């Protein structure tokens, strides 16, 4: 097991290197002089010159890349111009809020989708299954930013039940905290909810067709027991893989959801930074989220191995 983890960690290095390279290449694609773009049209020539020095723009591209990697290894994501703070400090301030939001959305998604997927699979072809298919396609097709606005319109503007935007501060109490959290997390949960339930249904259907399920049924094991113990337990592995990949759509969705609900997380930070043309913050946040995604998927791989020790990652060219 330890050997497996070490091997996976070594495999991580080229991926992280490429992630860094992609961000480096994209930011170097900014047309014109990055220093004057960063500082905006009002910047004086001496400011631009100082920033060029600071960013190392007078070095060759290769030297710039090495310096950039060196900074990343030392967790130095640079200094924000608009916020006058280190980028990492800004990110660490906002990241816990994004974590709360995505965690709640993830939880809501699992809570709804797994029972729904299991029920749809066990009643394949019924009106419930049909309803399920349509609803899950609705979930995939609905734009989260529109859903968010419509929920605000219904529950905040019209009914006045829930606050429209913002996050409760520590002095507001638990109730305010929860009421502020409901609309954004429900909004964000729709896409993973639809994807989870579809994969749950598919993998349950596959498992329920296996011989050992028929055997268990023939032995007179109760329907519920067959479904939960023999069926669901074995259908878990593909669900787990999708859960890891779903982190990506959750983080992407968080950017839009946070903008709608003025939720003070990383997504809002990125959008604010774009509007302020603070590319250093954008660059740092994006690389932070990408590395986070890679690490979460590593954790999922390891968890996968714990759940199902037979799985081998040694086969070359596997998916």
């Amino acid at each position, binding site marked *: 097991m330890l050997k497996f983890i070490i091997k996976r960690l070594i495999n991580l290095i080229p991926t992280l290197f490429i*992630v860094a390279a992609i961000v480096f290449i994209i*930011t170097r694609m900014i047309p014109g002089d990055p220093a004057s773009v960063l500082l905006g049209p009002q910047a004086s020539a001496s400011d631009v010159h100082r920033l060029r020095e600071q960013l190392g723009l007078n070095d060759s591209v290769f030297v710039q890349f090495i310096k950039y990697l060196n900074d990343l290894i030392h967790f130095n994501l640079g200094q924000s111009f608009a916020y006058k703070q280190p980028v990492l400090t800004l990110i660490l301030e906002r990241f816990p809020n994004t974590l709360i939001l995505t965690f709640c959305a993830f939880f809501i998604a699992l809570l709804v989708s797994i029972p729904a997927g299991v029920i749809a699979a066990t009643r394949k072809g019924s009106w419930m299954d049909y309803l399920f298919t349509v609803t899950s396609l609705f979930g995939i*097709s609905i734009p989260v*930013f529109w859903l968010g*606005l419509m929920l605000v319109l219904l529950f905040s*503007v019209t009914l006045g039940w829930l606050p429209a935007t913002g996050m409760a501060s520590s002095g507001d109490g638990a109730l305010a905290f929860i009421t502020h959290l409901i609309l954004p997390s429900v909004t964000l949960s729709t896409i993973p909810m639809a994807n989870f339930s579809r994969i749950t249904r598919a993998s349950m259907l596959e498992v329920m067709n296996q011989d050992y399920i028929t055997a268990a049924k023939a032995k007179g094991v109760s329907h519920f027991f067959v479904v939960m113990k023999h069926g669901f337990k074995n259908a878990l592995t593909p669900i787990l893989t999708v859960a890891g990949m779903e982190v990506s759509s959750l983080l992407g969705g968080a950017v839009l959801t946070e903008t709608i609900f003025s939720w003070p997380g990383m997504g809002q930070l990125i959008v604010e930074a774009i509007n302020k043309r603070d590319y250093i913050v*954008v660059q740092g946040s*994006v690389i932070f989220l990408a590395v986070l995604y890679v690490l979460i998927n590593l954790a999922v791989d390891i968890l996968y191995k714990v759940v199902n020790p037979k799985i081998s990652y040694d086969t070359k*060219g596997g998916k």
Partner: protein
Amino acid sequence: MVPPNALSVTKGKRKKRRENLFLRRLFTNKLAVVGLIIVVLFTLVAIFAPFIAHFDPTKMDVNDALQSPGQDGHLLGTDSYGRDVFSRIVFGARVSLFVGVGAVVVGGAIGIILGLISGFYGGWVDSVIMRIMDGMYAFPFILLAIVLMTVLGSGLGNVILAIGIANVPTFSRIVRGQVLAVKQEEFIEVTRSLGAGDFNLLFKHILPNCSGPIIVYGTMGIAGAIISEAALSFLGLGIQPPNPSWGNILQEGRDYLQVSPHICLFSGMAIFLSVLGFNLFGDGLRDALDPKTRV
């Protein structure tokens, strides 16, 4: 004595029969038919936009601002500049469909070529290409598009390019997987021994055998691109006002959610319905192409 062209005749018949079976499966699937109808309707609206819209979508009239649906001949009301919301949504369909198809063509072309090369040649070429795709996968799709837009700048062409590039890793992975499977087939070995070159093999024999999954993902990819364009325009990075796009109509309507909720309601509905259409149709295509893998 069998006539010399008998073999190709039966082959042609078999192909036709397979196509018929595919079409029958597709058209007995009610959801897929509903999806196709929605897609066709939106396409017609986009093509005939100038004949359907009664008003100039960019013409402002401050005296006519924030009218409710049905007032003064404005079917879906007006926005804060007095522009007709229905006309803006109708013309917005052009942008959405153009970006949807364009982004899939751009992403598909690059992704398919990379996937073909990667799967066909294997070895270090495959490793390098797939590691780069893994790296791109680490960025949430919309975030990659957002970052590319901040670098490229707003505008229709750049929106297509940004969403297209964000689509490349998925296309290349799908095609690579298919190539790995098709490569093992006997007919590839036979064709090669008959003297076919790599280029011929790849584009004439392997690619056509990968078309099923490409078409399915392409259809779903259009849906994804429509949502992404709307998201980028909603964030102010995509299509810039006064040019109408469903995303920027939604963005502008957001400030008037309390007084004129119809602006957001209808523009979002347009995004939702068109995306649903492509997803329903794509889902149906997948079932019809391979009934075993129904998800």
